[in-house]
């Protein structure tokens, strides 16, 4: 049954998934290229000094990529479900409703994690050719919240889409935007630089807190709250 459900999710998102993967890898490769160029043109010590202080100078291009990926995947995956109440078909399947909703969401999270993991592996491996592990660790802490924010927005899209009441959708949508913002406090342009190095684990934990909320909106759907 799970296999069938995954098959359906895959049919929905496959082209989007491939497109998003391409965009992600394009951005990652271009960051790697500009990093390589910088090392061939500028004195390496200057880049070291800047990167050591800024924790990820070359990576701002990547900042909103996970966010866009999560948003698009969520919409592509869940819009067909709520359009004409197709989600009734899913909830009617001989499966526990909570299981089918969670599986759908976990499928999306898995797809995003797959893309982001490849992103991170390429980026960090390439970086470690030029930078010592101390700096690479710093880069990891810089890009981790960006990646997590992609998952956060995805989870909120799933919650908002399954939720049947418009007024609730609006408040939960705003809550979601606020939640995403919390993952982008790291660098405020022209202001102070903040780091997640002491609290990143907390922001990973938050994912587990918000993910099951899809069951709450699923429950509202079932109760017929309009």
């Amino acid at each position, binding site marked *: 049954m799970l296999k069938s459900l995954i098959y359906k999710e895959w049919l929905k998102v496959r082209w989007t998934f491939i497109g998003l993967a391409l965009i992600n890898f394009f951005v990652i490769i271009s960051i790697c290229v500009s990093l390589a160029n910088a090392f061939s043109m500028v004195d390496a010590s200057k880049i070291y000094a800047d990167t*050591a202080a800024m924790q990820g100078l070359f990576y701002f291009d990547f900042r909103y990529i996970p966010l866009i990926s999560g948003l698009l995947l969520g919409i592509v995956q869940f819009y067909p479900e709520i359009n004409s109440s197709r989600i009734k078909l899913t909830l009617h399947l001989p499966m526990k409703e909570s299981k089918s909703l969670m599986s759908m969401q976990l499928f999306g999270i898995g797809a995003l994690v797959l893309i982001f993991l490849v992103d991170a592996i390429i980026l960090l491996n390439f970086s470690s050719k030029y*930078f010592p592990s101390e700096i690479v660790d710093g880069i990891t802490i810089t890009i981790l919240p960006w990646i997590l924010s992609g998952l956060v927005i995805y989870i909120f899209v799933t919650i908002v889409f399954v939720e049947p009441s418009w007024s609730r959708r609006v408040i939960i949508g705003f809550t979601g935007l606020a939640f995403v913002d919390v993952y982008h*406090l790291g660098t405020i342009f022209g202001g102070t630089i903040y780091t997640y190095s*002491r609290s990143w684990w907390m922001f990973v934990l938050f994912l587990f807190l918000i993910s099951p*909320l899809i069951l*709450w909106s699923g429950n509202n759907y079932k*109760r017929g709250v309009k």
Partner: protein
Amino acid sequence: MKKTLILKLLLTIVIIAMASIYLPEFYWKTFPHRYYLPRVAYSPILNDLLITKGDFKKARILDLNGNSYSSKEYEALVPQTAFAQLVFIGQLPDTVNGVHFTVPELRKNLFRINFEPAEIDAIQFLMYPLIESKPNRASLSFPHEFFCIKREFQVVDSRTNLVLDNMSSRYSLALIDRGFKFPAKEMFGNPTTRKPFDEGYFVIDNEDKFYHIKRIEDEPFVRKINLPDGVKVVHMVVAERDLREFYGFFVTEDNRLFMIENNTYNLVELPISDYNYKTSLLSINADILYRRVIIINDNKISVLILDRNYKVITTFKDSVTHKDETTVGQVASFIFPFTLQFTSVNSQYINLYPSINGFNFIIVNIILSGLFLLFLIIRKFDIKSSILPIAIILVTGIYGVIAVSVLRDFKKKNSTGVSNE
């Protein structure tokens, strides 16, 4: 049933958390508040303090006897800092209090050193450049070697990204020789070449001992600095200035301020009070005649005027209305039961910074839960089954109202179903 309760509580927490971050933030952005604390100077001519009060539009300059001065008069009274303007109008005195005034000397002596909480609880540099302190050139040059002090002193060549084993072990051994315990807890220095000379780094080792480390003619220089008993360094500002009076200033865990004298490594304590390194702003404002230490805690200012030998001349304390005591602050204390922040002005680390401001909010919370109760009664909802939402509003006030309006978990009397609106 239990599962849905957990989900509801989870959602309530998420909504309340977000509301308690962004509602107060939005509120204070709409009604911003800043403190106009007095600016304090010491006049060698009056031998007294001069206080500038008010905001920049209508500043008033007064002495302690209440005489007021124009800004032109003021400049003539503080030639040690206003010398540029006095030179411009040709009125710079030759000597003041027996000190000869020349522009290069005045300029050399004029500087300011800041201790800000966010710079103390700050992001550590990941690697530091190992700058040669005695270059065989006119100016400093940026090195290819970067280092960090973890299990050992590790030097990396930025051109190859390879560890320089030989150099690493030379520096490690030099440190071990002086009793250094790895890893370093913190390092202070200015990793830049835009300074007249280089004094390397001041390092706290794993046992809170304090060391001065630099690279001289490509060899390690290590010197242990003797600290008074029980003194733990929290933060140091290294100041490579042509004055060469000191290496820099440091503050300690028990909120004391010291200067490290150049060459001798003698420690000179500055007798400050009202300082807390976690929250206060501290600045050392130097000129050819005095050292002014200014400590600011929100709405309070505390000033210490010292002579060049760091002996106290006079002190000054003042305060303005606190943010929370203004109308805007009072309103906030009523409507916001608490505030959650992930960033703090006192730190560069993102973390949970909850704060609570008095208990005025209880009144508003009671009113809000009363209104909610009224709503339940008018719409004929069952009160008993709405205990949880009432409690949420009672405790979390305006944030709880948002959460409850999303949950909408009210039941009609004598029914198993749920109100669907």
